[in-house]
């Protein structure tokens, strides 16, 4: 594999769902694809808590040292055209239960709380035309993995974050960690806990899976000045 600075762009159909402005991280998306390919049908049966974490092998450059390594890939950069709330619903199908459920000794079902509770859940949707990431990696392999990525962010099962197309192109500069002096991804922080002016620190994960607690480090956060 030959690594070079890349600019990767996803053209979106509509809104995507992300709870914070640093999601979706592209190395996590690539990792999902790599594991799907490697594990085949077993992919959907895996549970890291039970089976242990499977490290991904991505066509991106590894940076950092020791346990503080991470992939050379920035967080998402996009121009947000707006936000809106969408609500999804989950309800106990009482009409169908008359024909298909055996309630045993239960004479009534509580759908206000408990396991059969009905849900109306808000989603924060972000409207953007496209999302761009900067990375250092192998363009051909990144392009191949991204071919199978049809959605980004949460609630892909409901059609959110639909991707219309991908562009992977060489970039003039390496923006995987910082661009114009501003941090573009969480970077492990080795300095004092008192950040200098313009730097923002926080405990976040540095590599996928980003929800995996052992990956959290004190980091210089995206948006900080390089110090």
């Amino acid at each position, binding site marked *: 594999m030959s690594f070079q600075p890349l600019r990767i762009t996803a053209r*979106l*159909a*509509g*809104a995507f769902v992300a709870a914070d402005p640093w999601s979706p991280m592209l190395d996590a998306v690539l990792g999902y694809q790599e594991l*799907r390919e490697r594990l*085949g*049908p077993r*992919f*959907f*049966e895996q*549970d890291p*808590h*039970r*089976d242990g974490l499977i490290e991904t092998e991505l066509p991106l450059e590894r940076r950092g040292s020791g346990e503080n390594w991470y992939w050379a890939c920035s967080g998402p950069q996009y121009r947000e*055209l*707006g936000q*809106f709330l*969408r609500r*999804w*619903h*989950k*309800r*106990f*199908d009482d009409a*169908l*239960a008359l*024909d*298909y*459920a*055996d*309630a*045993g000794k*239960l004479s009534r*079902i509580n759908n206000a709380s408990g*396991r*059969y*509770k009905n849900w109306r859940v808000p989603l924060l*949707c972000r*409207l*953007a*035309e496209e999302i761009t990431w900067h990375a250092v990696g192998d363009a051909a392999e990144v392009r191949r993995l991204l071919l*199978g990525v*049809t*959605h980004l962010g949460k*609630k*892909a*099962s*409901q*059609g*959110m974050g*639909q991707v*219309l197309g991908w562009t992977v192109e060489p970039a003039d500069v390496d923006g995987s960690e910082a661009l114009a002096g501003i941090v573009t991804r969480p970077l492990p922080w080795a300095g004092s806990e008192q950040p200098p002016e313009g730097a923002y620190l926080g405990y976040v994960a540095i590599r996928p899976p980003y929800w995996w607690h052992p990956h959290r480090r004190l980091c210089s956060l995206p948006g900080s000045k390089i110090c």
Partner: protein
Amino acid sequence: MKTRCVRLDGTIELLAPLSHIGETISTTAYLNEEPVIQPDGTVETVFVYNGNALRGQLRDCAAKYLLDHLGGIRVPLPAFHLLFSGGSIGGAQVVDLEQARAYRRLLPAVSLFGGGVGNQILPGKLRVGNSYPIVRQTARLVPARYWTDPLPDYGGWTAEKSFTRTDDAKDERLRDRCLAALGEPERKKDGPPAQMRYTVEFLCAGARLYTHLVALDVSEIELGCLVTAFEELARFPYLGGQARMGHGRCRIAYEWTDLTAGGAGTPFLSVDDRADLSPPAAEAKDAYDRFLSSLYQAYLAEHETELTELLTGTK
């Protein structure tokens, strides 16, 4: 097990007005509309039929087909909730790999739509897209092969319709049939109103919507399960609310693209008053039917099968 990724693209043609409520203000229910990006970067608001709504309907249809073809069995509430609503997570902090595999192997509907079992989430393989009207405002989202020439404007595609619910107890002609008139106690003043006028906003009949879904790494049997969901939908081809008044009747047609093998889209199935299946769709359905048949035979032969244990919650 051979699996593949399949993409279905198609259209929903409304044969009756469609109600899909976004918000209700007073006695008026408004259509679900969301902002979409225009080619020039501006934003306009149009109707969207949420992917989760179609997904929920397909999940119900797949579950009905499954249970009807297992001899019309009635399942305990947890299994019913899993099949029809996706279940819920809770209970002991135990992750049982064998149980998860058993669910995937024996219940392709759960494998396809996903669900919560015990303390585990079984991720689904289906991604049901939002459906948008094929209009000028959604040209960026809808593949050009579904466009009409010229593309219509969204303005004027919606209409409001008012309905009256009459309190027949106040109808003098029916008064002698009403117990209240014969001395029964009057209804409480703070009880629900028996007479009202309400308004619903609809997407007009004749509208065409673009619909698509993606099935990731599905086996032939799981694809067949999806086909049966559409076949079940064809028995009552209505989307959205107010179906009791005939609203939401539709005609659906899908093309399919095998993303694993590549190639262009070819007709897959259509849903009208009946389902028309292309040869690949029919083959997938046959594979699923054979699977269900063998499952049913096993169920009849031995009531303590793995399936029974799973469905009755004893496993």
